[in-house]
């Protein structure tokens, strides 16, 4: 019988899509590979989680009245004072958070940039995902929303940029919050951004255990629950503030 199968003449060659990096000295070497970058992402993510948890918890003080809230704001500026200069630890924290944010963003960008090269021809039929959930597949959307929100939030209540918060008065922390959240478009931005943050955390606070290699049958069940509760607590707390102002509970 005739050979029914004409053979293809072109070889399906496999070529690397990335060069293996020349090792830099430790600890920079940790950041040269994507497994290492993901580790940095998880560490900086934990810093972010600690920050948002502390930030949310501190803001609950606004339910205890203007005096308490102002006192709390004052307290942040004078942590460990007079052992260290006033605002010293505040600035240490600010710079640390900025550094963590920059690393987190760079790692995210670099991972995205690598992963977009690995499937030049995509599936031509519909994919049917089983495990990859909505949260895990929108990290690259919720992340930038959070970034934009961070910029807006700083302009609104830290720097008091005229165009964002015209009633801003330096030092009047409580009144600034009330003035800002009384405007419903601003309140909406806060609510939407914090829901995005909650979705980001729902995946991130689970994912970081894998990236750091924290995996033990004793706790594996708890990791998903932890992430869900963490996300829920942050969203519930942070969304309650603009709602409380809009409803006149905080005024």
């Amino acid at each position, binding site marked *: 019988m005739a050979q029914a199968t004409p053979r293809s003449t072109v070889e399906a060659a496999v070529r690397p899509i990335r060069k293996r990096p020349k090792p830099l000295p430790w600890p920079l070497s*940790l950041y040269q590979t994507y497994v290492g970058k993901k580790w940095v992402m998880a560490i900086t993510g934990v810093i972010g989680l600690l920050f948002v948890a502390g930030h949310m918890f501190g803001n609950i003080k606004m339910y205890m009245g203007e005096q308490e809230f102002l006192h709390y704001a004052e307290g942040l500026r004078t942590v460990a004072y007079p052992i260290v200069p006033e605002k010293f630890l505040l600035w240490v924290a600010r710079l640390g958070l900025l550094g963590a944010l920059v690393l987190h963003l760079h790692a995210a960008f670099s991972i995205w940039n690598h992963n977009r090269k690995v499937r030049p021809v995509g599936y031509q039929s519909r994919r049917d995902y089983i495990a990859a959930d909505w949260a895990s597949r929108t990290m690259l959307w919720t992340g930038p929303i959070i970034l934009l929100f961070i910029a807006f939030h700083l302009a609104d209540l830290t720097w008091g940029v005229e165009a964002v918060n015209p009633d801003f008065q330096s030092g009047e922390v409580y009144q600034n919050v009330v003035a800002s959240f009384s405007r419903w478009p601003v309140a909406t931005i806060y609510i939407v951004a914090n829901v995005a943050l909650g979705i980001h955390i729902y995946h991130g606070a689970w994912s970081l255990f894998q990236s750091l290699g924290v995996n033990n049958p004793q706790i594996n069940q708890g990791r998903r629950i932890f992430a869900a509760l963490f996300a829920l607590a942050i969203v519930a707390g942070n969304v309650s503030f603009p709602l409380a102002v809009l409803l006149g509970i905080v005024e």
Partner: protein
Amino acid sequence: MKFTLKVWRQDGPEAKGRFETYEANNISDEMSFLEVLDVVNEDLIHAGQVPIHFDHDCREGICGSCGMMINGQAHGPQRGTATCQLHMRKFQDGATIVVEPWRAASFPIVRDLVVNRSAFDRIIEAGGFVSVNTGSAVEANTLPVPKQVADAAMDAAQCIGCGACVAACPNGAAQLFTSAKLQHLNLLPQGQAERWERTENMVETMEEYFGTCTNHGECETACPKNISIDFIAYMNRDYIKAKSLNRKLAGQGLE
């Protein structure tokens, strides 16, 4: 049973592919998916046409060559099953089934449903072995291995290198394969001597060819051997250690 198959046909690596539609009649529900392709190919051959190319060898779920995307899922709808062991009773009679090859830059299509998986071999060559002369087997009690460790190593060793994890992953990452091939050795006493070099070399070779993991967990559901993403976590931990340890002290667990 009767099925309509929409199968990806591509004449060579550089050729433009297309879906072609075939009817498969008189299919028994006890047939495997590959046997249905055999039936379609019989018809094609009788009609003087080129049969559908697909990879297969053992047809009992151990060689890892029969991977294909079936209705958007690697190895089709049944969990923990390779295409060769997927039976037609899993499908509705009269259904239309779409079949496509794995898609990844490092799994180039050879023809139709056949892809070149030799990038996996590059990862194995980088350290997926134990290079000591073991001689004849030692007396079992000289190398105590806790039961849980032996079980975990055996779970990892089940990987058949089919590539479903890469194919299913939204990032085209090979973390599940690499971690399985790494940890079945790293967990056992015989794997300790080369543990840190192996980890470093296999992970870094993996990154030359594949995407990187963002913990979707999709690979685990696609894997015909139910390899767990726990191994990816172990690999991540071993990699950071491999980069940071004083290897001069690594021999006796002194690190």
